[in-house]
């Protein structure tokens, strides 16, 4: 009888042990489908970490995330892909799709994060073969985006930075009328900013930029150089007597900044700004980040009559 009891308890223990083993998990959060394959290996990135690498569902004006009618998904997050095997590539990724509420055009951003430099896995040369349409090296604007970038057709851009490879694409219903490589590229610059800002250091190591207003640091950690041009949240100009007014609707996200009779207006994902002296082309596009618009600091400050002095990694804004 006792032997029988032990056998039963051992069997129960074994079942319990099997149940406690880590398993590949798949779950859903609204329109977000998440899968974690990190049974053996993990990159240590969470769902929030991946969402921080792309735009929020309501962060792109005139666009919204609608679940696909067939599968219910607008976002796919894969954590620790191949992490159920002891060796080989290891990758987490996020793909999010938006739809333009005016035109029906589709917009998507994909970010793939690898266990080591993404160069080990994705290069321009990899994509120079086996595709129906060949990519063209370089960005739409001609600016150097990431360590390597290429464009594909009129509405897709790919770049690589640190551990990340990024694709931004716009699928237009009426290509001739709506093709806009620069818009797609503006989105891509915003993703580059997010990679560099990521707390888990997924981008390239950069020296921090210090911005001073009246000798006081502002925009701490948020001012960084994007291919040589410092960008920062526009609201960080407020200590320099700049009045900042945000207008955010489902159709448009603009910020108007004014100071001593000078004013300017910037718009999310635009490459220019309106000023009291007319339209000015920007060195880097405007994009949103955590409720603020990120702008090229020197151009915007100078348009408001602020003198900008830079010494090394320190930028001083001197209100006249």
């Amino acid at each position: 009888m006792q032997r029988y009891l032990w056998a039963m308890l051992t069997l129960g223990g074994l079942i319990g042990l099997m149940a406690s083993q880590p398993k590949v998990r798949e779950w859903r959060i609204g329109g977000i489908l998440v899968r974690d394959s990190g049974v053996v290996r993990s990159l240590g990135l969470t769902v929030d970490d991946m969402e921080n690498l792309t735009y929020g569902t309501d962060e792109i004006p005139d666009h919204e995330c609608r679940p696909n009618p067939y599968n219910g998904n607008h976002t796919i997050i894969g954590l620790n892909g191949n992490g159920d095997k002891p060796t080989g590539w290891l990758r987490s990724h996020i793909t999010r799709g938006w739809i333009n509420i005016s035109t029906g055009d589709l917009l998507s951003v994909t970010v793939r994060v690898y266990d080591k430099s993404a160069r080990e896995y994705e290069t321009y040369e990899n994509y120079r073969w086996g595709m129906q349409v060949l990519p063209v090296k370089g960005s739409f604007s001609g600016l150097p985006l990431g360590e390597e970038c290429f464009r594909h057709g009129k509405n897709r851009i790919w770049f690589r930075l640190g551990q990340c490879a990024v694709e931004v694409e716009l699928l237009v219903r009426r290509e001739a009328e709506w093709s806009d490589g620069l818009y797609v590229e503006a989105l891509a610059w915003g993703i580059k900013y997010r990679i560099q800002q990521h707390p888990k250091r997924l981008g390239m190591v950069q020296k921090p930029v210090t911005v001073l207003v009246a000798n006081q640091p502002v925009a701490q950690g948020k001012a960084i150089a994007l291919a040589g041009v410092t960008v920062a949240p526009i609201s960080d100009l407020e200590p320099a007597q700049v009045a900042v007014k945000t207008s955010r609707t489902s159709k448009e996200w603009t910020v108007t900044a004014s100071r001593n009779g000078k004013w300017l207006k910037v718009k999310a994902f635009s490459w220019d700004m309106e000023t009291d002296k007319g339209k000015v082309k920007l060195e880097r596009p405007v994009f949103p980040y955590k409720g603020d618009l990120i702008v090229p600091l020197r151009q915007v400050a100078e348009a408001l009559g602020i003198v900008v002095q830079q010494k090394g990694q320190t930028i001083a804004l001197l209100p006249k």
Partner: protein
Amino acid sequence: MKRRVTIVACVFLLTLANCSFGAWWIELSSTNPSDGPFPLRWGNQEPIDADRVPFLPRWLINGDPCCFKTGVTVRLSLRQDAPDPIHGWVVEWGVGYLTLYSRVTGQVLRTYPDAYFLTANQPYDFGPLVEWIEYAQLGMAVYVVYESGWVEEDYHGFVDEMFIVLDAPKSPMDPAWVSVLRISCQWARGESTSGGAAISLTQKLWENGNYNGGYPGYIRYFRDPNGLPVDDREIFYLKAFLNHPWFPYGQCNDFADFLICLMTSVGVPIDKARRTHQLLLTDDTNFRTNWITPAGQSPTKAEWTYHQFVFTDQVWDGCLTLGEYGNFIIGMEFNGYKTGLVEVILRYDWQSTPPSGWFIPEISAVPADQIPPWPWAN
């Protein structure tokens, strides 16, 4: 004390193993095995053995999906694996309110006669199912009578998903994926011939699809021991394709492979793909198209390194239509297709690729996070 512990342990283990006493259920089969039910898989995971829908389909309440041939007679059988501890075995049963609904429109498609006073081992055959492809639901009410005389009645429920197809699903959809049948049986709904289903599925793929402009999607290639690409193989990551936020979305390979899955899932024997050029020659543009209208886009002319389409003795292509006004490629003769698609050869002319003329794509249920970096599967 020991006895009590043993009893508690037994109950715990049985509960854990999801066992229960006295279960009965209704099993669906057909009088002719070649009419179904056809084996299915969910399309959720690899390997296939871990992914199969239970066979034969058991129905209790909202049971597993099942797949039958159009117009067949279905057999309902009562099954039981143990007597009820109080009331004993089921000795009699009956079924009523047998109704076939369309899951697409919600309409009643068929109602079937009731059957009462059946002995436990006496099956009930009802039919025929509809004569066309349908994504259906079967509703019914069942009563059973136990040895003790106890009656369980008004046991209403559904076979929630019943896929009605033209014939047994073919490779690479053998067994067919439930996730594919949910689409193919909607898109080809109402068709009663292979040709009609193939036309409907090709058109619906184009109407619902989003061509990605010729960028790597959900396929990967194979290389030989020398690292050179193999032309007669290709793996299609179908689950990842089905889950994309813009589904159906991809380049020509994805459209061709998915069209094969759609067709073969409903029993249409169109299962082969062909490329216009060897993979080794896809390092530069090979031809310019005439005016075409890619799925989800406006008319354009494109410069392509290659193109892939569905090919048996005719061409089926859900990725594009020919011309600015959209002529569907539904069973076109090969030379006419080439003439319609190609404006000018810029480098190498079309060639039979692979040399045998066709290949059947390999299908994978691994999700997007498990797809290896472009371009290799091995």
